[in-house]
């Protein structure tokens, strides 16, 4: 399974359906739609990155523009090294499954993840294993998020397809699953259009 090198972030907010984690490194965010996991006492909880943001550490203090005299963006950070400590990157993930013992379940775990639990990026093997069942799509299409369902589903499938032996076959199978799940053809069309 994943080693410490895959450790990305730490949970700072958690519920049964989702969790939010702060990255250890500024801007070290997992891509939208990628599969991450966190460990609870007895289960591993899998989530799909559904939103991400980089904000000021203190909600009341907004960053100000600093680069008027800098040649490059990098120069701004170099000249003000404190910036990386005053900003933070965090992402939220939608819980789509869990692993209890040897078995992988594509539905919600019994309880939410704990605060300060570590969040890891999943290895391609794990992504491939998770992608064997497309039942998680049902959770994705039925949630309300800041990111539109079409974008999230398409991003997830693009991410997951990369880990498959035959990405095309995987995408067609997922497309067929979506065609059944989504009664509205326009929504399906929007997703399929983003898969290419």
């Amino acid at each position, binding site marked *: 399974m994943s080693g410490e090198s895959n450790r990305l972030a730490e949970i700072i907010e958690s519920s049964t359906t989702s969790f939010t984690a702060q990255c250890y490194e500024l801007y070290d965010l997992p891509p939208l739609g990628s599969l991450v996991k966190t460990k609870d006492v007895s289960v591993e909880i899998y989530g799909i990155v559904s939103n991400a943001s980089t904000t000021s550490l203190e909600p009341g203090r907004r960053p100000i523009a600093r680069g008027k005299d800098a040649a490059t963006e990098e120069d701004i950070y170099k000249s003000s090294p404190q910036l990386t400590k005053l900003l933070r990157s965090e992402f939220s993930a939608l819980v789509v499954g869990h692993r209890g013992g040897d078995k992988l379940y594509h539905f919600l775990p019994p309880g939410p993840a704990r605060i300060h639990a570590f969040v890891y990026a999943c290895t391609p093997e794990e992504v491939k294993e998770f992608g064997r069942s497309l039942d998680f799509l049902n959770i994705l299409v039925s949630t309300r998020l800041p990111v539109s369902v079409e974008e999230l589903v398409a991003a997830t499938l693009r991410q997951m397809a990369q880990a498959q032996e035959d990405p095309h076959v995987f*995408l067609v199978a997922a*497309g*067929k699953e979506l*065609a059944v799940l989504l009664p509205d053809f326009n929504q399906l*069309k929007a997703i*399929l259009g983003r898969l290419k």
Partner: protein
Amino acid sequence: MNEQARQRLGIVVTGSLEEGIDVKLDGVVSVEDMAVGRYVTIEGQKQRFFGMITDVSLGVTDPHLTLTPPDVSDPFIAEVLAGTSTYGSLHVAPYLTIGGSGLAGGPMPVKTVPSHYSVVNQASQEDVELVFGKEDKDRYYIGTPLDMETKICLNLPELVKRSNGIFGKSGTGKTFLTRILLIGMLQKSAAVNLIFDMHSEYGWAGTSEGGRMVKSLKQLFPSKVAVFTLDEESSKRRKVSTDFVVRIGYDEIEPEDMVLLRETLNLTDLAIEATYQLRRRFSKDWIQTTINLKDAEEIKKVLDDTRIHESTFQSLQRGLATIGRLPFLVPHPPDNPVKRILEDLDRGLNVVLEFGRYTDITAYILVANLLTRRIYAQYRDRMEKAMGEDTAKPTPLVITIEEAHKFLNPEVASQTIFGTIAREMRKYNVTLLVIDQRPSGIDSEVMSQLGTKITCLLDNERDIDSVLAGVSGKSELKSVLARLESRQQALIFGHAVPMPIVIRTREYGSAKSYKEFAGEAGVKGKAEKDIEELWG
């Protein structure tokens, strides 16, 4: 069984026994690969069902898809939509259950439908063989199902137990089909055939649509076929080796024979009535005497005695004169054709009676009716004797008639010998093989008694209705029948087949096909010979 060999088509979604089963096709299966008339098996939970595709249709889950069609030029989108949002569906008529555990139970008529989401497969060669049986000593290879190489076989001893019909528009292959069937009968049915061969195409040789000569029964099986002819000259010109020239005496014609000719000779009911009176008055020579009545005095006397109206008599005299002009009718025939035919039939020979030039319907009806009536009488006597004395029954006889609607139309069917045979002669070991292009002209009572019907393409609504009358799943079969190709395809249903089937008839006319036909007979002949040698 070989599960891999079967191609999965889809799953059962709805249906009823009465109206058939709807099958949703899998995405990978193209509707364009489907065809009406093809066989499928449905794997129910407890039993396997065997059915036939009767309709193919397209469906969408969202009406938007029909109003604003997606961009299917993108293969990815097309692939995703196929089988999900857009799908093909089949309508399947279930006919048989073929046993829950593979080969165990034989085919049984279907009494229920498979449960929801049962898997539907294309029927494999084994399935079709399981249902229709393999070629053996009783089963005769008649053709193959569409798009399959499996041989479809008819159980001929079973077939000849009932009267049968071959129908189809002109030029759809009725004659070829009949030849194939006759060859089968003479090989495997243990019945003998008497064929009234109106166009002289079953005995020695016939022509195909392209004008090519094809061999017929006598050339292929010289030892099993006797060719009788009404027209010796025509037979000689065609270099046919005939066995007997049929001559019929005037005295053989009975008033009953005239009933059938009423229409073709344009006689009134009163004229038919008059024939009975004349027969009574002049006894056996009634025809010749009536034709020869010229003297006015004499005629008046006869008419007064018999109370026949003069105009009726004149019309009858004209009609009888038409018959009298037929060259094969003679005052004193050298031999009795009925006796000769029966002798040959008793020896196991199949008799083909060629009509040569006398292809007009009057001659055909007269001769067929006259001979059949006598043969019928003989068979009935023998059968009754056999039943009474417990001796051997006469060999089953199949009488083949063409233009059957002339003999079996509703006006005459109840009175003619052919109507009687179709209805009840099965008991006396005589059945009919009727060949016709206008089945709607045949009495419905007779049609309903036909055991097995083989029909090539028909496109007249009334003909189709009359052929399919009383068959379950009629509307489905109708769509199958109307879509037959105009050549070499036929729909078979009824007594001799477990379920309706569309076949591509086996080849007939090439050297290879002759060899195959002869080969089948040869093998059997050799086996019989071996047995004889072995047991003395």
